[in-house]
């Protein structure tokens, strides 16, 4: 057991710094801006780079700004948010993403730990399998879930014999969300566990602390920022889940119609409601980015120090 350590390259406690998300302080950013401006003054070489950066910024910002502007200019956001369809979608999204996040933590944490600490036959396969839902188109995921757990699916009759039906239920929403979103957490958690200095775990072990207690009182606290940012990313992906959900869970207000599905449905009947939900999701996404910076930021600084 003690030789487990050499299997894992000991890395500095730095889960991939996320360059887009977390410049540690504002000072270097200003400096680099000055440098860029000076460089542009000296040579035109940076102009095409800046131009493409500008175009990229427009591409990313335009839809977000358009939604917010449209809501601010035309609608009474609060009144629209009070509509039953909107409330139902909000509640359902909150409920299902909470459940899918719980399921993800429950199932994903052991897998991440397993991949980070142990070498076993099939490890590479499992490692690649984790990433499969990330690259798999959600519509394919939805169809696959239907073929597997639908009434006529591979396991459908067995489930039905147990009195369980997945399709068109809130449970189907949770399963679809977990399927597409869990890999984001598992990847981050695996990296976070890998980054934990195993010397700490070994010391705890020699002090007679059980493996279980070591995991909870040493490994998890040290890996926490990585775990939290992975959980946030996973939650965001679940919140935005659309393709797999509409295929396996259908769309019914209050039961399977989550916020993205409600936006899609409202587009042809109630554009105001669609915009209000979209604006809300924009706010949530921005808040999430802020949260991610908070979680990863200090860690990045600590690693740099």
């Amino acid at each position: 057991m003690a030789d487990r350590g050499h299997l894992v390259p000991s890395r500095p406690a730095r889960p991939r710094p996320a360059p887009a998300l977390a410049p540690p302080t504002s000072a270097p950013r200003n400096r680099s801006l000055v440098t860029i401006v000076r460089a542009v003054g000296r040579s035109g070489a940076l102009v095409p780079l800046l131009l493409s950066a500008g175009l990229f910024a427009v591409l990313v910002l335009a839809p977000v700004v358009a939604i917010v502007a449209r809501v601010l200019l035309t609608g009474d956001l609060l009144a629209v948010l009070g509509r039953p369809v909107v409330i139902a979608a909000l509640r359902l999204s909150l409920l299902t993403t909470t459940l899918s996040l719980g399921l993800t933590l429950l199932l994903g944490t052991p897998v991440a730990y397993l991949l980070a600490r142990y070498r076993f036959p099939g490890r590479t396969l499992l490692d690649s399998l984790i990433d499969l839902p990330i690259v798999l188109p959600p519509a394919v995921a939805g169809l696959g879930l239907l073929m597997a757990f639908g009434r006529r699916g591979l396991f459908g009759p067995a489930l039905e014999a147990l009195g369980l039906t997945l399709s068109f239920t809130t449970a189907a929403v949770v399963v679809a969300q977990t399927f597409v979103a869990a890999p984001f957490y598992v990847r981050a958690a695996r990296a976070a566990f890998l980054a934990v200095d195993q010397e700490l775990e070994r010391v705890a072990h020699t002090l007679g602390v059980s493996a279980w207690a070591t995991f909870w009182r040493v490994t998890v606290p040290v890996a926490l920022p990585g775990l939290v940012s992975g959980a946030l990313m996973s939650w965001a992906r679940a919140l935005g889940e659309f393709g797999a959900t509409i295929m396996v869970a259908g769309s019914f207000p209050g039961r399977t119609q989550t916020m993205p599905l409600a936006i899609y449905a409202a587009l042809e009947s109630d554009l105001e409601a669609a915009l209000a939900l979209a604006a809300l999701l924009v706010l949530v996404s921005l808040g999430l980015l802020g949260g991610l910076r908070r979680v990863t930021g200090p860690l990045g600084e600590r690693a740099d120090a």
Partner: protein
Amino acid sequence: MIRWSAALLALLTGLLLACRSALAPPTAHPSPTPTTTVSGEVVVFAAASLTDAFKEIGAAFSATHPGTTVTFNFGASSQLRAQLEQGARADVFASADQAQMERAQQAGLLAEPPRVFARNRLVIAVPRDNPGGVQTLRDLARPGLRLVTAAPEVPIGVYTQQLLDRAAQDPAYGPDFPARVGANIVSREPNVRQVVAKVALGEADAAIVYQTDLTPDLADKVRPVALPEALTLIATYPIALLRQAPNPTAGAAFIAFVLGPDGQTILQHWGFLPAGDTPTRALRGPLPRPDRGPGG
């Protein structure tokens, strides 16, 4: 995205036309009659239930009008109307109900008054082995049955609601019939073809759809259960040229083709009723204007 692709298509069509006029020997005097000037691409936004019939009509139109291509965007009429309102470019709009066409007209999207080109009958669709044991309309209210329908704005969703409301006036069904059926609805799908697909997959026990949706391709998966004669409800399909049509001549020619004998033959081959036909129990007077539906 549709706007972009439409813009791109328009651009390509423009280039194509420019090439054609540059290459083709100029005719003495381009006469204003449609038959000689019809060319290029026709973009048709059509109700999902028209998918099979319109694809065949599109091929026949291109065959009889060399130099034309027909591009379709099939979807719920309500969705297509919303896309058009948001600026999607198309030449022709064919809706599965009058309500969406009227809204398009009120939004100033139409270049001409719409014309009815087909009608359609509603049926109950059940999986081939009918696991829910649905024999009559009344069975749809049986607790535990899994029904799918379309979103409240989608024509088939509106027609279904109208049918249930009409049944509610019959004491044999009772005034709570729509509510009891509604309690069995497990999903409101984006369009009628998605509704049929869920029945074909066996995920739903039944759905009310158009008889034309039970295409030969689905014959081994889905079968119809007739609705009571007394409650027969006929769907009406209007078509119109759009005001912003990039290719109005070809669009008008396409509409004429749909209304003409060739188009009508194809439509009836796919199970549509002729436009002029008034079946025994057709709607008396204008459709009761549906309210905004249960969803709000």
